[in-house]
């Protein structure tokens, strides 16, 4: 199957009554204990939005992020991305959606160890079927754009946190996805670098119309988004303007 074409009109992301229940084995290993971490989350995010998801630890914000990123499947409820019902897609289709439609940026950068910055950025293109040469040339372009051109041959361990996160952002952008999902992208960075990284997100959102959804627990980071969704105990308790 080819990548499903986005269905025009409608929001980029729409969820209805998303629930997630984790079944964990109890101490004795005989029984399972069900823990519900998301309760009936319904929301819609349009193209071009810049959304911050906030909440205390255990509020379910990371779980919501994993569901939106197609890394996990909901226990019940529906999720449409670009108009497609995610629940109806096969594992291969989900991999394709992650590859083409979503760019991930993680707190811990999650670059592939012992691979150069260039190869890290090029990796998603290889999974999309590009040749190595094509992938590298496109990756170099992106590294130049994030100001890391001269670090292309460096491995992640030879780069600072801010540089690693820029490599990760380049990797997220390499397939031109409409959506960037960032899970605590500044969590491991100092204040100065955090603001530089946020500036990149703002620029991508403003100048290229890329939808950015970021999870954070820092108010000053969330303040740079234009919309705030606050979760508490697995429920949406605020959805709207910043400053609530």
């Amino acid at each position, binding site marked *: 199957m080819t990548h499903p074409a986005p269905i025009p009109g409608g929001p980029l992301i729409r969820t209805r009554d998303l629930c997630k229940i984790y079944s964990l084995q109890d101490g004795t290993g005989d029984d399972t204990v069900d823990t519900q971490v998301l309760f009936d989350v319904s929301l819609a995010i349009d193209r071009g939005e810049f959304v911050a998801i906030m909440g205390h630890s255990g509020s379910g914000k990371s779980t919501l992020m994993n569901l939106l990123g197609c890394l*996990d499947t909901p226990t019940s409820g529906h999720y449409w991305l670009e108009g497609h019902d995610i629940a109806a897609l096969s594992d291969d289709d989900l*991999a394709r959606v*992650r*590859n083409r439609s979503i760019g*991930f940026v993680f707190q811990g950068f*999650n670059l592939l160890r012992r691979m150069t910055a260039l190869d890290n950025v090029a*990796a998603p293109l*290889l999974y999309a*079927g590009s040749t190595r040469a094509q992938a590298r040339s496109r990756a170099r372009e992106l590294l130049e754009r994030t100001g890391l051109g001269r670090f292309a041959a460096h491995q992640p361990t030879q780069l600072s946190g801010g540089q690693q996160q820029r490599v990760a952002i380049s990797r997220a952008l390499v397939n031109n996805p409409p959506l960037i999902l960032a899970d605590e992208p500044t969590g491991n960075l100092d204040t100065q670098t955090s603001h530089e990284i946020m500036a990149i997100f703002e620029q991508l959102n403003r100048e290229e119309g890329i939808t950015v959804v970021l999870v954070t627990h820092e108010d000053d980071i969330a303040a740079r988004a234009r919309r705030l969704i606050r979760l508490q105990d697995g429920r949406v308790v605020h959805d709207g303007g910043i400053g609530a």
Partner: protein
Amino acid sequence: MNPLAIIGEALRALRLNRLRTGLTMLGMIIGVAAVVLMLAVGQGAQTAVNQAISSMGSNLFIVIPGATSSGVLRSGAGGVQTLTMADAQAITHLPSVKATAPLLGSTAQINHGANNWSTSVTGVTPDFFRIRDWPLERGAFFTETDLRAAARAAILGQVSAENLFGTDDPIGRTIRIQNSPFTVVGILAPKGRGLDGNDQDDAVFIPITTGQRQIFGTQFPDTIRFMMIQAVSAEAMDEAEREINQLLRQRHRITEGAENDFTVRNMAAIAAVATGAARIMSITLGSIASISLLVGGIGIMNIMLVSVTERTREIGIRMAIGANRRAILAQFLLEAMVICILGGLIGIALGIGGAWAVSMALDMVVVITLGTVLLAFTFASAVGIFFGFYPAKKAAALRPVEALRYE
């Protein structure tokens, strides 16, 4: 993901863990080398046996004195030697028999000048060389006339000739067999090792009559040690065996129900046993070697499982950026296969080298065929696929969110 890129990824991952890759590969190298070496030795043994059998002559019987049922050492009631030249003559006239060669021999001291050589001296008739299909290299066979006259003529095997004369031409020269002078009339073509493992070229042949009268000092002038009989064809072997038994019983006046005082041995049957034994040895060696290949395979599975666990997070990252299950499966399967194929190639080279060393050091026949090499290579690749599949499947079955969370 295109296949070239996956192979590149596999090679890169293996390079990152050189020591581990090397040690895992070593299991494969040893396994494949052992298979190649053992097959080479086994097939070499089969070849050696086949050569020995074809050097023996075809459709052969050997008749020796004494009964099989009580062991070959026991003689019949008539005396020490129960077979005679007359027996051999009579057998020659049987319809299913092509030729008969009576033999009489023992080990004797031979001199030529200062050279001394102890070897087997056998009295034979000219038919012996026909039955054994043993041509001359130089000179001539002794004749029926020589036989009747008990001439002092000798035919030397290659090894004996070399030991007595070195590089000189022995034809027409005189050697002394237990101090009696003999003229060398012929040198036999090389024959190699016999089924018993002895060098058949280390021998001297003289007319059997000369042996009987002058060298071996037999109790009765007409007796022989044993005889070789050639049947007219392979199909006639059973018929010939029956006829020989019947004739000899009649000639030796053995009453109905009494034991034979001779034994007829079908050399084709003995050859079949030897061939079978060589084949079984070949199979056994190969099987034992395959076990080391199996152990190498388990080593690969073990390391791949560790590798999958260690790289769970990497797998998660790859899934997040768009790797589907097939790409992950292919990546890990290819790593296992690269180890096996590289190890297999090195192992084949090592096995061939080892076989060569064995053939040099132990003077053994080793045979390496293209089939052996292909078999070893196929086996190695199969081990890679078989033992690499489970860990790769395990990696591909990981759920992205859990793999990403793995520390």
